[in-house]
C-alpha cells in the first residue's frame, strides 16, 4: 500500500502532548495587599491538558510569594498560600478535574468570545470558597484521587481484576509518568488496563463522565456492545441513553429543572475535540480516555453560547 496506515496509537500520543496556554492574574482584592512597589505581572504557563492543578500549584504559589514577603501569612490581611484557589468567570475551579476538562466545559459554556486563548484564570490567595470547593492540600491527595478514580474505571471495565493484580510499583509508575510527562512509561503499564477479560472483545462497561454546566456530573452503566443486535454502540447511543436515564431519574425525584435530553442540542467535546457522534464507544474508551481511564465528555448546550 502506498499510503502508510495511520496507527491509532499515535492519537494517544497527540492527546498526551496537547497543551493549554494559561495566563494567571492575581485578583484585584489580593493585589491591593502586595507589599512591593510594583504589582505582580501576569504569569504565563503552558499546561498539560490531562494534568490536575495541584500538580503545578507549587510554581504559582512560589511566584506570588515573592510579592508578599514579610506580610505573608500575616493574619491581619488574610493572605495565605494555603488558601490559594483559581477562578474563571466567577466559578471556582475544581482541584480534582483534569485542567483540560475545566477549560472545555467553562470556556465553551460561558465565554462571550470565540477565542479563549490564552485561558485567563484569576488567582485568589484569600477567602477560599469552602462550601463550593474540596481542598486538595498536597500532591499526595491528588495522587490518591487519581488512583481511586483509576480503580473505579477498572471496576467498570474488568471488575477491578486488572488493577487488583498489578504491583504497587506499577501504580506508582502510572502516576510518576503522568507527573514527569513520560508517555512511554505511562503506556507500558496503561496498555494492561486496556486489555479485555472474560473472553470479551470489549470492556464490560465504559468508564465515562458527562459534564454539563451547573450540574453534578452524570455517570451511568453502559456496555459498548449490543449483544442482542450484534452491533457496536456509538457515542450518540451513549449520550442518548445517559441523558434519557438522567431525565427519568429527575422526573421521578420531582426535580424542578429537567435536563435537556436532545443530543443534537449539544456540542460534544472530549479533549478539546468534537469527535463524530457515530464513533464506536469502545474505540473512544481505548484511545480518547484520560490517564484516569475515564472518558470525560463535556456537553455544551448550543443556546448557552452567546
Amino acid at each position, binding site marked *: 500500500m502506498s499510503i502508510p496506515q495511520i496507527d491509532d496509537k499515535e492519537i494517544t500520543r497527540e492527546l498526551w502532548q496537547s497543551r493549554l496556554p494559561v495566563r494567571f492574574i492575581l485578583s484585584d482584592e489580593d493585589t491591593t495587599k502586595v507589599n512591593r512597589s510594583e504589582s505582580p505581572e501576569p504569569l504565563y504557563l503552558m499546561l498539560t491538558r490531562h494534568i490536575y492543578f495541584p500538580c503545578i500549584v507549587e510554581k504559582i504559589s512560589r511566584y506570588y510569594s515573592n510579592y508578599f514577603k514579610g506580610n505573608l501569612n500575616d493574619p491581619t490581611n488574610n493572605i495565605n498560600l494555603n488558601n490559594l484557589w483559581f477562578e474563571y468567570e466567577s466559578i471556582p475551579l475544581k482541584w480534582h478535574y483534569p485542567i483540560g476538562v475545566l477549560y472545555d466545559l467553562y470556556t465553551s459554556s460561558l465565554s462571550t468570545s470565540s477565542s479563549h486563548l490564552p485561558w485567563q484564570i484569576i488567582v485568589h490567595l484569600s477567602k477560599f470558597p469552602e462550601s463550593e470547593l474540596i481542598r486538595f492540600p498536597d500532591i499526595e491527595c491528588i495522587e490518591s484521587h487519581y488512583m481511586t478514580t483509576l480503580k473505579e474505571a477498572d471496576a467498570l471495565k474488568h471488575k477491578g481484576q486488572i488493577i487488583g493484580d498489578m504491583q504497587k510499583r506499577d501504580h506508582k509508575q502510572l502516576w510518576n509518568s503522568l507527573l514527569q510527562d513520560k508517555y512511554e512509561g505511562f503506556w507500558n503499564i496503561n496498555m494492561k488496563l486496556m486489555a479485555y477479560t472474560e473472553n470479551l472483545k470489549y470492556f464490560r462497561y465504559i468508564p465515562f463522565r458527562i459534564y454539563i454546566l451547573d450540574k453534578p456530573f*452524570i455517570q451511568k452503566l453502559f456496555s459498548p456492545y449490543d449483544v442482542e443486535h450484534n452491533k457496536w454502540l456509538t457515542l450518540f447511543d451513549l449520550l442518548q441513553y445517559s441523558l434519557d*436515564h438522567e431525565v*427519568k431519574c429527575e422526573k421521578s*425525584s420531582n426535580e424542578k429543572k429537567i435536563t435537556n435530553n436532545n443530543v443534537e442540542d449539544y456540542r460534544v467535546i472530549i479533549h478539546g475535540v468534537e469527535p463524530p457522534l457515530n464513533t464506536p464507544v469502545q474505540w473512544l474508551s481505548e484511545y480518547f480516555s484520560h490517564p484516569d481511564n475515564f472518558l470525560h465528555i463535556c456537553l455544551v448546550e448550543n443556546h448557552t453560547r452567546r
Partner: protein
Amino acid sequence: MSTNEGNENDSFSVDASNSAANNDEVNTGSVRSGPSNDSEGGSKVVFLLKAAGGAPILKKKKWALPRSKTIGHIVEFLKKYMQLDAQQQQQLFLYVNQAFAPALDTTIGSVNDCFSSEGTLVLHYALTQAWG
C-alpha cells in the same frame, strides 16, 4: 474487617422520633416498600452502610437519600452521627465495592446507577484508609 451480616433484620427499623422528616438528613422516612429494585424505581437511593477496618458498628444499616446528595454529604453526616469530632477523629472514608473511594462531590445517584448490585448499594465506611 468487621461487618454486620448476621444482623440485617433490624435494619428496617425507622425511629419515628428522630428527624426522619427532614429531607436534608440521611433518613429512611419515606421508604415503604423496601429498596427500589433499580435506580428508576424510586426517587431515593437506598443503601447499606457497613463498617470496615474496625470502625464502630452502626445499629441502623439501611439508609435512604435523594439522588442528588453527595458522598461528601454522607461523610459529614456520619462524622456527626458517630460523634467523631468529640473523639478528635478527623477522617472517615467511604468505599464502593470494597475497592475505591468516590470523590466527595460524586452524587449518590450516579454511584447507585453504576455500582448497585441486584438493587442494593453497599457502602463500607472506615476511619483509616481500608483499601488503596
